[in-house]
């Protein structure tokens, strides 16, 4: 297991959070890897939805985009994007939403819009996509994001998606139906909201990571739980399954496409 990367460890840690039969609204990148790893290991009946409208998809390789043909071909069905967002996500039919971001704050609010002022950006990011409503409606949200003082910040430049707002029940008072970010999976371990203040606190570390490493990577004074769980490294099966998935994916994406003449 010494060869396992932090990306792989994050993916495995996220996959383990997913129960069989749960309905996941999947984003591209690490979340897509984590969800499919769960499906290929302990959660064969997990329902994966991509925002392209593919429901119950079982891709053999990971998609590069949110709408690769692999997703449509292996889906139980394909519906329109308005239907996915209104009749599934907004209707409360999604158990778990995954989000990434450029910045997160101590209450799990996320920025994927802009670094610097909105009207005079230092770095323009891709923007909201499905995030604001995933953050609002999914029963639980899992955030996957590598930590640094540039990404785990005291103050967001822009709030794209709501976490716990200012904490202490502010989210629930705002009328947001979903439960908010129940876990932030990062490259030293996991933060979860404090039951009262809803401030993210360190509750689990990868076996080879330390509290000091976590504190150094977070741009606010990090709350540390009384008890810190250890996240076991990927098992041989998890590791082999993930590597095989990533290998298949690399091969598939490198396969030349016939230019249609």
């Amino acid at each position, binding site marked *: 297991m010494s060869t396992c990367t932090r990306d792989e460890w994050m993916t495995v840690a996220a996959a383990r959070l997913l129960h069989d039969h749960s309905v996941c609204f999947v984003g*591209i*990148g690490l979340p897509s890897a984590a969800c499919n790893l769960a499906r290929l290991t302990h959660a064969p009946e997990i329902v994966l939805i991509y*925002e*392209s*409208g*593919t429901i119950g998809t079982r891709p053999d390789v990971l*998609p*590069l*985009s*949110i*709408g*690769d*043909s692999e*997703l*449509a071909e292996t889906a139980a069905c*394909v519906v*329109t*994007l*308005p239907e996915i*967002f*209104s009749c599934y*996500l*907004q209707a409360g039919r999604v158990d778990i939403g995954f989000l990434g971001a450029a910045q997160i704050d101590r209450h799990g*609010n996320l920025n994927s*819009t802009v670094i610097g002022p*909105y*009207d005079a*950006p*230092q*770095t*323009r*990011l*891709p*923007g*909201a*996509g*499905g995030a*604001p*409503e995933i*953050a*609002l*409606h999914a029963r639980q949200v899992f955030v996957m994001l590598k930590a640094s003082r540039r990404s785990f910040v005291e103050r967001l430049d*822009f*709030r*794209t*998606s*709501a976490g716990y707002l200012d904490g202490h029940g502010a*989210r629930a008072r*705002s*009328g*947001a*139906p979903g439960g908010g970010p129940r876990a932030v999976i990062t490259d030293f371990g996991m933060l979860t909201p404090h039951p009262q203040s809803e401030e993210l606190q360190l509750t689990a570390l990868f076996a080879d990571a330390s509290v000091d490493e976590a504190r150094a990577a977070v741009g606010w004074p990090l709350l540390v739980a009384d008890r810190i769980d250890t996240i076991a490294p990927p098992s041989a099966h998890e590791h082999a399954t993930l590597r095989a998935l990533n290998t298949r994916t690399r091969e598939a*994406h*490198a396969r*030349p*496409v*016939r*230019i*249609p*003449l």
Partner: protein
Amino acid sequence: MLLPLADAIERFVTDGASVALEGFTHLIPFAAGHEIIRQRRRELHLIRMTPDIIYDQMIGMGCARKLTFSWGGNPGVGSLHRLRDAVEHQWPRPLELDEHSHAGMAAAFCAGAARLPFGALRGYLGTDLPAHNPNIRRVACPFTGEMLAAVPALNPDVTILHAQRADRAGNVAIHGIVGAAREAALAAKTLIVTVEEIVDTLPPAMNAIMLPHWVVSAVVECRGGAYPSYAQGCYARDNAFYRQWDSLARERTDFLAWMDEHVLGNTDHHAFLTGLQQDVA
């Protein structure tokens, strides 16, 4: 009804028009976008949930005055550098943003398709978007009093789609991931559809996705018209090209050189594809 691509763009896409090239990852009408660039259209209000490479190219070539969108990246790869350059440095010209979430923009297309003036959703809660976009407002439910988010209908002057096939009457059949393409089509004043092939008779659609001929203004036969995006059942998405775009478009000069050679330097999409094939070989 059946037109060559250059004629369809010439006739229907005018400077200053609002234009939606839709297709969610799948069936993105690249050939039509390139033709708009070749015809040097200006001051367009571009509308698209996910701008993708085609809008990066149109923005970088100075076609656009304004962008209505909800996610502006290269999916799975990173930034759209030309979009960023326009927003961060106003190059080649300033770009006004009308920025939404996917759910908001989907509601706006649905309202447009139904010819309602606005769409309502439970959305935009706890985000800074409404503070920067006056097109995100609130509406009270007349029964419960609950406040919902509201967005104005999107009714593009022109929507352009790519699809697998159409018949000679102009009925269009779409197969696979459809995103908000159908709503964008029905919301448009003018609808242009490029297709992989025109057939004598479409198979009976029953519940499949069809755009009936009298909502379609022009059908253009254009094989490979979605490349480097894809057409389910015809050809795959060229993920390697999407990755490559990241370096091709990072610098202004590289971008302009590529556009000169591949888009402006070719008379049509067939020549564009042939040129790329030579590059690959």
